[in-house]
């Protein structure tokens, strides 16, 4: 494996690739490892459902939130997940527009990651509402109260951005699946699978007029999705920057959040493709080139994030605002200091290993760095949300925050749900976009 590997190893061709990839989805029985791997995520997902039901019954008082820290795990995890989701869109949409060939084999998994990441993210703001059954009040509809939402609040635009993003992600993901679903339909061994994949393929037969329409639509959606990543994450940043809270009220927040989105998204893609290429025998299509490119992207976004951390410190001390400095000192040396330094270690220092080509190709180290980044990004969100809120301007309002068992169950539940979703994708649909791979592979067996 070298950084100079081609995007598919020599000798790869369309028939072999299609046989192999569609064979994974059409297997009669699941892999043994798949059965074992689904147990824990399924249990965690059940825990998620249970804790949500209990939350609806008992209210947000079961969480650790209180004054002054009224935004807790729900917001931390929301931002964390939506960041992870955004990285996937970056790969599937932006690098489609740049016609990067290495994207073709990891695009499906990146999009699926976006889909389930956004689903996990989308749960939290609704749970966070306290009265979740009124979530539709966020939507400006002609109601009997004659009330409109506050259009000047970023929180409202956050709702629009997320809604647009989730809807577009689902459409983009499904549209990208159509030709492959048609392939599965044509190869399905049983009548049941034929019908299910046939219905899902929406009558895609691969005629030239269908392809013509398909390519236009896919291109348009990709062109919409790429800027959406930025809009959705800028708005998430503005949710914070719009408040006059210590440490949040900064024009740097929108780009800072986008940097974080790239970092966590690339890390998650790496963490997914590394085991997958081995377990599903995809080494031929996910090569050293892919690991190298993703490693470089991870390193680059890590440098961006590092820059944002430095500017965060610089702005605080250059600005000289007393409350800001107090809060920042607290961040560096206070009760939650460990979490801040973990953020710096995992997001900035550890990824510097990726300067070395040998390390970028060492799957174990890259996986560990990626896990570190995912943990680090969570720590970053924790620091942003909790540390700022626990040191407001008035010393009389200082307070601490501790998560409860329900916070953890909900959080681990979404992790389980995410993994469960990815495992379902692995089981039921082609994990590699076959029709896009056909564009770069040899058409026939040698």
């Amino acid at each position, binding site marked *: 494996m070298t950084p100079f590997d081609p995007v598919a190893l020599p000798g790869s061709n369309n028939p072999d690739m299609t046989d192999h990839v569609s064979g994974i989805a059409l297997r009669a029985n699941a892999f043994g490892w798949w059965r074992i791997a689904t147990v824990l995520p399924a249990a965690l997902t059940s825990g998620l459902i249970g804790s949500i039901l209990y939350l609806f019954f008992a209210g947000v008082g079961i969480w650790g939130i209180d004054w002054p820290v009224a935004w807790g795990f729900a917001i931390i995890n929301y931002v964390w997940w939506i960041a992870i989701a955004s990285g996937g869109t970056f790969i599937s949409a932006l690098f489609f527009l740049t016609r990067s060939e290495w994207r073709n084999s990891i695009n499906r998994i990146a999009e699926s990651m976006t889909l389930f990441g956004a689903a996990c993210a989308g749960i939290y703001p609704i749970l966070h509402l306290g009265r979740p059954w009124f979530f539709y009040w966020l939507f400006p*509809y002609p*109601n*009997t*109260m*004659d009330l409109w939402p506050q259009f000047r609040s970023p929180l409202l635009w956050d709702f629009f951005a997320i809604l647009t993003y989730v809807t577009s992600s689902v459409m983009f993901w499904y549209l990208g699946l159509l030709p492959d679903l048609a392939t599965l339909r044509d190869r399905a061994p049983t009548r049941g699978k*034929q019908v299910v994949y046939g219905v899902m393929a929406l009558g895609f037969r691969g005629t030239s007029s269908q392809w013509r329409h398909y390519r236009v639509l896919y291109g348009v959606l990709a062109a919409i999705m790429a800027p959406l990543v930025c809009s959705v994450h800028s708005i998430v940043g503005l949710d914070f920057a719009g408040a006059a809270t210590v440490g949040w009220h900064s024009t740097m927040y929108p780009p800072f959040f986008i940097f974080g989105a790239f970092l966590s998204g690339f890390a998650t893609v790496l963490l997914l493709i590394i085991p997958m290429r081995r377990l599903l025998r995809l080494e031929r299509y996910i090569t050293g080139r892919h690991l190298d490119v993703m490693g470089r992207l991870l390193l680059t976004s890590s440098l961006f994030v590092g820059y944002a951390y430095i500017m965060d410190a610089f702005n605080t001390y250059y600005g000289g605002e007393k409350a800001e400095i107090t809060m920042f000192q607290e961040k560096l040396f206070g009760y939650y200091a460990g979490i801040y330094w973990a953020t710096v270690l995992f997001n900035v220092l550890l990824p510097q290993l990726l300067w070395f080509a040998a390390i970028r190709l060492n799957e174990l180290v890259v996986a560990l760095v990626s896990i570190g980044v995912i943990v680090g990004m969570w720590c970053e969100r924790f620091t942003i949300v909790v540390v700022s809120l626990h040191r407001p301007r008035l010393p009389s309002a200082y307070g601490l925050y501790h998560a409860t068992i329900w916070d953890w169950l909900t959080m681990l539940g979404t992790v389980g749900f995410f993994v469960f979703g990815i495992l379902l994708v692995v089981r039921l649909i082609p994990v590699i976009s076959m029709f896009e791979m056909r564009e770069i592979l040899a058409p026939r067996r040698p």
Partner: protein
Amino acid sequence: MAAIFSPAANLAAKLGLIGAAGLVLGGMSWWWLWPRTDYVRHNSWFVEQPVPFSHQHHVAGLGIDCRFCHTTVETAGDAGMPPTYTCMTCHSQVWTNAAMLAPVRESLANNTPIPWRRVTDLPDYVYFNHKIHIAKGVGCESCHGTMQDMPLSQKARSLTMGFCLNCHRDPAPNLRPPEAIYDTDWQRTPDTPSPAALAQQYHVGGRTLTDCSICHR
């Protein structure tokens, strides 16, 4: 290879799509219209009362003023429901043996209030004050309808937040001269002072009546 789907599948798919679109449209219309129906708002609903009190008879027929029974309407947030003694002002003398009035006599004998049930009910999170509305020239009829025409009391207005805001956003046209406040038949005449003049007379305006805290405290 045999075809997976018969030609009928095309029709089924189209019907499915049309059905889905119909569901979405129907759902949205329902969402929009349903809360506005009289049924949901309990508009024109009668409420079962311990005694079938007729405002039509007492107000239109006998000419009793609203304030004879609802004594605190000018001085307190609550308009006040009459104690049994008020009923007995007359009914200790007239219809003393009417079966319909048995609960009133029992109430007096047992010294327990008559459990009247509220017809025009606002949610508990709304702070409504009768006194200020009367003092600023809002007539009873604006919210309660033509009570003197009701043999049994019924809710006359939707009382949605939109209904309240409709007036709070522009109160002037709904103001009436002091002598017309309790007149449920009152109509604006050419002699009536203009809405602007009334607003000035009552010192209405200069304060944002649509602030949340005006009604939600």
